[in-house]
């Protein structure tokens, strides 16, 4: 169908929890809610120490256009507001709430009124919903479209290609209605003519449920995608559903596409239906160190330790704990880290799985070249980086790397290729900034010379 097939890797799926309905976690004594759980400016706290808060109450407002408000998922008292070291390495303000266990819901939570596109946009902004697939990009920003006709298709991402994670699978099964409410919202306010639900073919139940809901001429289609990692990566999904290539430096909208994660859409629909903003998340708890893997619904801010405890604790000493899946997930320094808006899984691994395999010499087998979905050459990037040649990195387009991890996954020499690519990107950015600064300096000097004449 398409001239070119994007590469990828076949990782073991390990969707152990796909058949498990999410269970609700009892409220923990404390929750810690960081102000940066999205891409963009951190939110600004609007509560002070000692304030009483209830479920659904605003505790921080958006810190800018690209930002998102934050609501409490528990009732209790604000205990402290201080800085928390996030796994990104940055300190961000965090609100700690001592819960009272009553889970009293804020009075006056009603479905938002939205007659016009403007009002819908404002409602999305207030919902606190961000990209729940992992990226955490504020949904309101994504849905701010100047020309509605620019949207040719909305792609609902149900690929869930990372091993272990099944929280999107559960959304597609348990909250199918909400997803379709969301589809109706997109059709009503954004006048979307074509909606594609992309689901990997290793989730037949999800495919069936949503295929049954499609009606001829309804503008919605379900597309079964090969279960190949990274099927759910935005640019890969766009290519594999509508055949468009998002060019370097452009947004999906520039090729007529908007991609929304299925859980993001369901969360948005829930807010429009009930008025309850995003305050809790379904999280897959799994990994080789976990006693009983489960899907757990927990208020945002819950320490991940409570989730593991709820799953029967550890059957062996955990050595590595992740936010998200094993291919792109972020390693956590300890178990106190809170559940964030965009946390879809927490995984704990035993000693055997946590160990880093020993790095050996590159044998130039080219497996990384063959695995890269974006046709990059990781082996050449590594060489250019180690030789400190940013001009080579520019030609090799390391900036396009999405850090999906396919190259490092297949590398027989266990080279840390993703780590190198991350560092190479910084090297390239610094180089380009210096080039730009030098060019400007020369220009300024020439201008001065002109003046003197």
């Amino acid at each position: 169908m398409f001239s070119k097939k994007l590469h990828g890797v076949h990782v073991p799926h390990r969707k152990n929890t796909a058949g498990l309905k999410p269970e609700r976690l009892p409220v923990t004594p404390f929750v810690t809610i960081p102000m940066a759980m999205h891409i963009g400016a951190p939110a600004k706290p609007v509560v002070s120490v000692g304030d009483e808060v209830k479920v659904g109450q605003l505790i921080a407002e958006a810190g800018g256009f690209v930002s998102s408000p934050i609501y409490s998922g528990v009732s209790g008292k604000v205990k402290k507001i201080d800085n928390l070291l996030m796994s990104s390495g940055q300190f961000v303000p965090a609100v700690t709430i001592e819960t009272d266990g009553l889970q009293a819901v804020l009075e006056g939570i009603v479905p938002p009124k939205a007659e016009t596109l403007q009002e819908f946009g404002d409602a999305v902004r207030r919902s606190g919903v961000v990209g729940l697939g992992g990226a955490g990009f504020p949904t309101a920003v994504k849905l701010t479209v100047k020309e509605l006709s620019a949207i040719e298709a909305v792609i609902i991402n149900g690929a869930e290609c990372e091993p272990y994670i099944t929280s999107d699978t559960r959304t597609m099964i348990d909250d199918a209605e909400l997803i379709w409410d969301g589809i109706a919202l997109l059709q009503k306010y954004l006048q979307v003519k074509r909606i594609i639900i992309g689901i990997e073919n290793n989730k037949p139940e999800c495919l069936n449920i949503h295929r049954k809901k499609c009606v001829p001429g309804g503008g919605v289609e379900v597309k079964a995608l090969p279960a190949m990692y990274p099927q759910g990566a935005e640019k890969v999904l766009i290519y594999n559903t509508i055949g468009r290539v998002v060019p370097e430096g452009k947004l999906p909208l520039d090729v007529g596409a908007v991609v929304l994660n299925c859980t993001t859409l369901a969360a948005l629909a829930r807010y429009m239906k009930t008025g309850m903003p995003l305050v809790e998340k379904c999280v897959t708890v799994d990994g080789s160190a976990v006693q009983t893997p489960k899907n757990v619904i927990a208020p945002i801010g819950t320490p991940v330790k409570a989730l593991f405890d709820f799953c029967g604790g550890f059957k062996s000493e955990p050595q590595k704990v992740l936010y998200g899946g094993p291919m792109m997930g972020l390693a956590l320094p300890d178990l106190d880290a809170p559940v964030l808006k965009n946390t879809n899984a927490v995984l704990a691994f035993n000693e055997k799985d946590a160990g880093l395999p020993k790095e050996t010499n590159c044998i130039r087998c080219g497996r990384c070249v063959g695995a890269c979905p974006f046709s990059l050459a990781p082996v050449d990037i590594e060489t250019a980086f180690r030789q400190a040649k940013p001009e080579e990195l520019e030609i090799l387009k390391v900036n396009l790397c999405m850090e999906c991890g396919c190259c490092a996954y297949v590398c027989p020499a266990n080279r840390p290729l993703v780590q190198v690519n991350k560092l190479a990107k910084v090297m390239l950015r610094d180089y380009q900034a210096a080039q730009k600064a030098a060019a400007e300096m020369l220009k300024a000097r020439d201008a001065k010379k002109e003046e003197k004449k």
Partner: protein
Amino acid sequence: MSTMKVSVSPHVKDSTSTTTIMRDVLIALCPALVASALIFGARALLVTAVCVAVAVGSEWAYEKLVKKPSTTGDLSAAVTGVLLAFNLPVGIPLWQAAFGSITAVIVVKQLFGGIGQNFANPAITARIIMLLAFSSTMTAWVIPGAADAVSGATPLVILKGVEGGGTLPSLTQMFLGLRGGCLGETSAIALLLGGAYLLVRRVISWHTPVAFIGTVFLFTLAVGGNVQNSVYEILSGGLLIGAFFMATDYSTTPNTDWGRIIFGVGCGLITVLIRVWGSYPEGVSFSILLMNILTPYIAKATRKKPFGGVAA
């Protein structure tokens, strides 16, 4: 307080390693080893054992000497040893075989930085050096089945019409490997079996062998116009072992699919040029070595366009 291990993603890894890849190559070479023993007798095993032992030993000794971590465990030196042995006549004096192994591992591989860093195939380069240094013993072919250790000509020599030739073996004999030649290169069926194993295990891709063998077939067909002779050319000399085991070496061949095709076609062309018009009867080794030198350029020229990349 950090209590957990942290590292950059990905946190999982498939099960292949350099060692498993080299182990697969060794497994793939086993049918040819068995065939060589059946065809040329126990001395084939002795030559192979000496080459492997010296190759591994010199890698170990060199790395000890320059205080580098030992890489003998990745089995690549063992593979080099087997491949070199397979490219020697069975009657080669053992000290010459040992000299070849040392040359391959130390001069061609280690002095360029060890595994993955050498630009020329160690076994092939060592063989060419031996061909120049020990030209009489390196071309003393034993005809299997003939009365003990009668030296004779290889089919390629006979094809070339050099004086002192003999009668050509039949195609069936060629296929089984009952002909004069290096000890591991003669049995087509054993090499095809090994090549198929490597393809199934995805250790090698089809591009180079198909391009290499296909080019030799078509080019000789164009020159000679006889299908049977072209098949004969494929089964002769070191073409099959070269196409499946030497022209697919990772560090000395391109890492892109198109690059591998160009590499194979180039090898095929040079092989036929030497076989038909050159003064040597066989050209597989020379063709691979020459293409090794072009590899960085081929790899660069065939690099894929990044997905969505915009020219700077």
